[in-house]
């Protein structure tokens, strides 16, 4: 499968940048570096110069193209909606195509693209670091985030004993009159936060849906995209589309914003959705199917938890900002508050955190002011990557705040007795 556009195909969009500089106000990387090459406008000018032959793939250019979280903040605020995130990804593919993979890109390739992927994620468990990676097979893009550079000074969630695959069956039958839903979990939910995946399956099943969780699914390919590895992204896209083939599902739900960005966004970049069913974020799905009203009708709890919400970039850029908030506001045990800078990137950015650990942490720390001011004791986010990064920023600052997935809270409201 060949799903992505080339840099040349983005030519008309490059011409739409009018160099106004508005992107400077919204780029998490620029806010730290204050250097023009960090921001969308500088990268667009470089892309145009590259296409015109005014500059080659020199080291400095590669460094600047590396300095992007692909968070899409600039795209959302651009008066002309220039898709800089997609253009940077295309630039990285150009660099990889002509110069081969960067050291980090090579690691991504070995990790997420190994042969064992095809046999299924579970059996590929060759351990990189016995202590940390006991449960994370080398086929996972997660390995990269825990590479020595990315690990230094980072606090991590306890690695769970059993992965999601060991916790939920491949098929769970619901009511006959309810739709059948496919579930794409992704690496972070499968290995780091299996309880989120478990919550999703339990919740959907409680609501009467049948759930299909094909165990031959692999990494979504976001790390491959981020490191400019087009062949690998294509390979992973093919594997994941095949994983759902033969299962009659009415929709495929995701609970990881980044996986959603890959499956619903990048897989469909050139030729539209390759799956037999719509790929839909779980918050959007639940909101569209009456769960907000259902939650709002539950008896209020005596004990309320003050919760705020962080927008994962890959939901925000898809316009999914209302639904997670509606769900949280409707929860009987939650006192929902908005925080300042809720839409600011957490700084993880796929492979960015491995390549630029210091910058990644500095960007993450920008979340803390608004978070503390909100007075929340929990911060919910629809992306396990954000949850991991937010918790790390919180821990390093010595705060008593827990990063959670909205699904954790929803399941609690539906199953626990009111307190």
């Amino acid at each position, binding site marked *: 499968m060949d799903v992505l556009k080339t840099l040349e195909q983005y030519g008309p969009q490059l011409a739409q940048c*009018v*160099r*106004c*500089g*508005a*992107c*400077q*106000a919204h780029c998490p990387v620029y806010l730290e570096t*204050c*250097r*023009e*090459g960090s921001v969308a406008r*500088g990268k667009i*000018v*470089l892309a145009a*110069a590259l296409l015109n032959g*005014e*500059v*080659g793939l*020199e*080291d*400095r*250019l590669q460094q*600047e193209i590396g300095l992007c979280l692909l968070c899409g903040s600039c795209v959302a605020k651009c*008066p*002309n909606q220039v898709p800089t995130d997609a253009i940077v990804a295309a630039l990285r593919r150009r660099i990889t195509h002509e110069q081969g993979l960067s050291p980090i890109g090579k690691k991504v390739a070995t990790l997420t693209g190994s042969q064992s992927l095809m046999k299924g994620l579970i059996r590929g468990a060759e351990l990189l670091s016995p202590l940390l990676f006991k449960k994370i097979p080398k086929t996972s893009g997660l390995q990269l985030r825990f590479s020595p550079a990315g690990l230094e000074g980072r606090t991590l969630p306890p690695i769970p004993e059993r992965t999601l695959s060991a916790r939920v069956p491949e098929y769970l039958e619901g009511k006959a009159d309810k739709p059948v839903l496919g579930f794409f979990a992704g690496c972070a939910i499968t290995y780091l936060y299996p309880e989120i995946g478990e919550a999703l399956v339990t919740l959907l099943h409680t609501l009467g849906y049948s759930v299909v969780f094909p165990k031959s699914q692999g990494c979504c390919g976001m790390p491959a995209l981020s490191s400019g590895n087009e062949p690998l992204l294509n390979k992973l896209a093919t594997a994941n589309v095949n994983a759902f083939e033969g299962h009659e599902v009415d929709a495929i739900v995701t609970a990881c914003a980044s996986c959603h960005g890959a499956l619903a966004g990048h897989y469909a970049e050139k030729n539209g959705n390759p799956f037999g069913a719509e790929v839909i974020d779980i918050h959007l799905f639940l909101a569209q199917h009456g769960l907000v009203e259902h939650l709002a009708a539950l008896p209020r709890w005596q004990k309320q938890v003050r919760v705020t919400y962080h927008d994962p970039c890959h939901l925000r850029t898809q316009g999914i900002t209302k639904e997670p908030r509606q769900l949280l506001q409707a929860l009987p045990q939650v006192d929902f508050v908005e925080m300042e800078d809720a839409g600011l990137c957490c700084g993880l950015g796929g492979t960015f955190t491995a390549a630029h650990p210091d910058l990644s942490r500095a960007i993450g720390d920008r979340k803390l002011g608004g978070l503390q001011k909100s007075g929340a004791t929990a911060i919910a986010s629809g992306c396990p990557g954000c949850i991991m990064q937010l918790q790390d920023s919180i821990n390093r600052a010595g705060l008593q705040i827990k990063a959670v997935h909205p699904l954790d809270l929803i399941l609690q409201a539906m199953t626990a007795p009111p307190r």
Partner: protein
Amino acid sequence: MLSDQIRLALEAIVGAENVSSSSTDRITHSFDATQQQFLPDVVVHAETSEQVSRIVRLANSEKIPILPRGAGSGFTGGSLPIRGGIVLVLTRMNRILSIDTDNLVAIVEPGVITGRLQKEVERLGLFYPPDPASKDFSTLGGNIAECAGGPRCVKYGVTRDYVLGLEVVTPTGDIIHTGGRTMKNVVGYDLTRLFVGSEGTLGIATQIILRLLPKPEGRKTMLVAFADIDSAAQAVSDIIRGKIIPTTLEFMDASALDCVRKTGNLDLPLDCRAVLIIEVDGDSALLDGQIQRILEIIQPLGVLETRIAETTAESEAIWKVRRSVSPSLRKLNPDKFNEDIVVPRSKVPDMIRALETISERYDVPIVNFGHAGDGNIHVNVMVDLAQSGMRKTVQLALNDIFQAAVKLGGSVSGEHGIGTAKAPYIGMELDQATLAAMQAIKKALDPNNIMNPGKIFLDESVPEPPEKPAEIST
């Protein structure tokens, strides 16, 4: 290209990581919001006044052009390195050094983003009024170089009205101090005013002392629809004659309303040919009274409809009408020439009529909106440069527009500056003796003409723009 010796000297001042002559860095510092491109020879990031001084001294002794650069968001080419040389980036000199709540004074470095300072002082109940549209990304150094304005200037004045003093590195590398921290200061010449609006041609501000105000307690927004531009302009004059100075008095003429109408974002009657957006601020208890007074004043003027925002959301909805104009323009034609002429407040209807005539004469759409309260009209000539002869047509139309503005007692630029884009028109407004006085000042401070050379004054040696003409902007 600079010699290795000079590059090494620069590296000795700021460190190798802050000096680059790679194609990548030269390209990313070759442009501003005019969309023109000129490659510098080297890009240098400085972080202290001392570094700036040493770099300028080096540039002066080697006679290398030096270009101070902030956000690079100017509309007239002020930060374009038209003769190559050193681009000196000041974005990392971005510390707010102090906010003095006893004396209502802030001291900042030039790389501080205007919107960030506003946020910080508002947290303390204070207020920095100048609000250029670019305030979320443009720097105070740049705002001072261009003497930036904005919608709130009707009531609060422009950047120059808030600068009490400056630390400036002159073109010979000396560090001088103008003005001070006090409201009153008459010691020597008022150099502060000379440097504000000097477009980086006389020196580089490395520290800025700003005057602050107490933050107004509340704000109220209203939209008024008129049948014609004369009534709207009359309303502006009458409101001011009625001794009310609103915070903002923005207008959109029929051409702008038609643009927004086409996008389906305008629910105003078709016979509405002009709109005013009026905002008042101050003590909350007094706001309703002010709005009432304005309503009484404008009622006799053929008002079609008034909307008074009762909530923040309603106020947002009103401002959305104004903000929809810019994005809707590109539906007319791909290339936009955005000028910021200013005329005496009472001459706005005459200017709008002149613009309509010019639009017909050259058969190009001209869309007008802007700050009616201070006569600052944003004139947008929308064309498709791919059409043959269009470049020439635009130049003729712009020439007529500037002529008309000056004839009405106005000016070719209210807040964007001259740079390279408007240098050809400066002679329409300034007589030879005045120009000579200005050039004498330039020569006295910058004997080797190294500091942002070729700006403001028409210079025959300025290279022709490679692509589009300078006036293109967002």
